[in-house]
């Protein structure tokens, strides 16, 4: 009680886990795994008009070891799948995955011999974005959803 009075107005108290989660969610470093059309829309999100840096996630890293958010944008086929799995395995914990667009989510309208029917067959997915391709707002929305998820995860496991 005494401590709270002393700090009132100058500081807030919270669990360490929540503080870390708060820092993490506003500094996500995406690894853009762009293979197809969706990657072009991601370019639009990075560009000035939509500006993903407003959400703290503009620092794209093409090295999986430096990033904590795997954004899979585009169709993944069977030839590509082992590479995606390897990239995911190389990322350090904690890590999150966004499946962007119909192809990454479910194979989209490519139901054929070549295309993997959704990346969740090989890597766990946190947020799915519908659309073919999704609008840039959809990507930003997914980012916000992921930030909420990170907060909730920290609150959940005590």
């Amino acid at each position, binding site marked *: 009680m005494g401590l709270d009075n002393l700090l009132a107005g100058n500081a807030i108290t919270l669990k360490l886990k929540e503080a870390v989660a708060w820092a993490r969610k506003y500094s996500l470093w995406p690894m853009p795994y762009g293979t197809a059309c969706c990657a072009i829309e991601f370019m639009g999100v990075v*560009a000035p008009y939509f500006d993903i840096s407003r959400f703290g996630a503009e620092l794209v890293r093409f090295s999986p070891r430096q990033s904590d958010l795997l954004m899979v944008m585009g169709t993944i*086929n069977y030839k590509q799948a082992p590479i995606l799995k390897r990239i995911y395995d190389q990322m350090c914990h904690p890590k999150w995955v966004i499946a962007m667009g119909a192809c990454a989510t479910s194979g989209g309208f*490519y139901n054929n011999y070549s295309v993997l029917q959704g990346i969740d067959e090989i890597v766990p997915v946190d947020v799915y974005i519908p659309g073919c391709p999704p*609008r840039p707002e959809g990507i930003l929305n997914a980012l916000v959803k992921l930030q909420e998820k990170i907060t909730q995860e920290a609150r959940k496991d005590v």
Partner: protein
Amino acid sequence: MNMPHNNITKTLIEKFPADVIESHEAYGDTTVIVKKGRITDILRFLKEEIQPSFEMLIDLCGVDYLQWKDSARFEVVYHLLSLKTHDRVRVRAPLSEEDPTIDSVSPLWKAADWYEREVFDMFGIIFHRHPNLKRILMFEGFEGHPLRKDYPAEKRQQIPTAEIDLLHLSLQNRHFSETDHLPTRSMILNIGPSHPAMHGALRYQVELDGETIHRAVAEIGYLHRAFEKHSESSTYTQVIPYTDRLNYLSSMMNNVGFAHAVEKILGVEIPPRAKMIRVIVCELSRIMDHLVCLAAAFVDLGALTNFWYFFDAREKIYDCTEKLAGARLTTNYTRIGGVWRDISPDIITGIHKAFKVLDKAILDVSRLLERNRIFIDRTRNVGIISKEDAVSYGYTGPCLRACGVPYDIRKDQPYYDYDRFDFDVPVGSRGDVNDRLMVRFEEMRQSAKIIQQALTRLPPGPIMIEDPKIALPAKSNVYGSIEGLMNHFMIVTQGICPPKGEVYSATEAANGELGFYIVSDGGPRPYRVRCRPPCFPLTASSERLVEGGMIADLIAIVGSLNIVVGELDR
């Protein structure tokens, strides 16, 4: 034997009387069917001896005629082009099911190497004396040949675990001459497919001597989505959304290319207003494509600022496409027989606004780059390809023009009244990275010029033809009259049925010649759709282009070729 229809077939029959089975002319295309035995001699004759000579192998593909009676099982189809007269000829060589083999034409054209590998991969046709006949789109260990008619479209195969080892060396499989060995130990470097400069799904393996690339192998197929297989089970209208995703940087142009081919086989002429709108959207797409190509190439070279400038302009064009078609990227705008929606005064204002931003962006970027020492050092005299090699590889579009060959389908075989527009075709002189990038700069200006002319002379009138067997009726008709409703129902459920036959149509896409070869059996679904992707030959040549340069040059070269994996792998 049919009567010869023109000089080409006549000369061919005189020269090879025993080998020409049939020749005919349909839909403006000349076709010669020949026996497979002397295919190399026949094609060499066409390439070197006949006048005009057909110096370019534009396309090579296979067809499986399993379901056709009185027909050999397979066929290999060659499309040749003469750069002097712009004549085209199609040579078809039937192959039996028991013996699906034919001689390779890779000694004649460098382009044949990869095309034949693709036909081998997709149809299982063996090419004798091919230097490196192995799978190209599918992974090693894949069983069967997916474009054969008896391969079920949804039969999936898991990739063998051996493939997971990324250091699996494809360099060993490439054919090298004896002199190609190094005095010291070399290092193998894997670049891609998950690499920022590999544009999605392209992979190179290079053998390094220090930082110099000694040998290189390109591996593709990481975005193979079976466009051609899907087309065979979709109606002609249903194919259009798939074409959007071939070259996703300029999707409207792919729509137009496909619709143009189907209209050619249907024998219909679209209304003047629809033509003009198609010209406008095609040129807008060309600008959008070049913006991304250049922006990405500059990012790869380390010039990030230019990316922001160019994407700002692209965003403004997105606004126009969104108003026009309701989508930013994959627009699904063209219809067989016209276009989906009319262009409104609002959109015209939008386009003019976008051009102001575009002009400024081009000016800003040219100021930053044109006399920039680093940029010039990294692009000039890097990745040079000679005129002869470019033709032999089957280059088209900006990359061919950068070598000094002024071939542009819009000028040389004009469609949609392109000959009535005043525009220039920029050409380069050295054929290096710098030329390839600068040609694109100028093409954007010329495209803007075409659009401005088109906007001023946009004729009034309908935007769809009025053939009830082809064009969907207006929605007000569907809801308001029984004829309209039935008409709509018939087209949606039965599809459009072109006559039996085959057609090849080429349009000038942002990257070069986008060709569609359609075989129709008279039904509502195409029997075979072959897309001739403009960047396939470019990628095939990149292996040789990067050899002798540094690793950093590889990045510059790949950026300048504008490899769009969606159309490369289909």
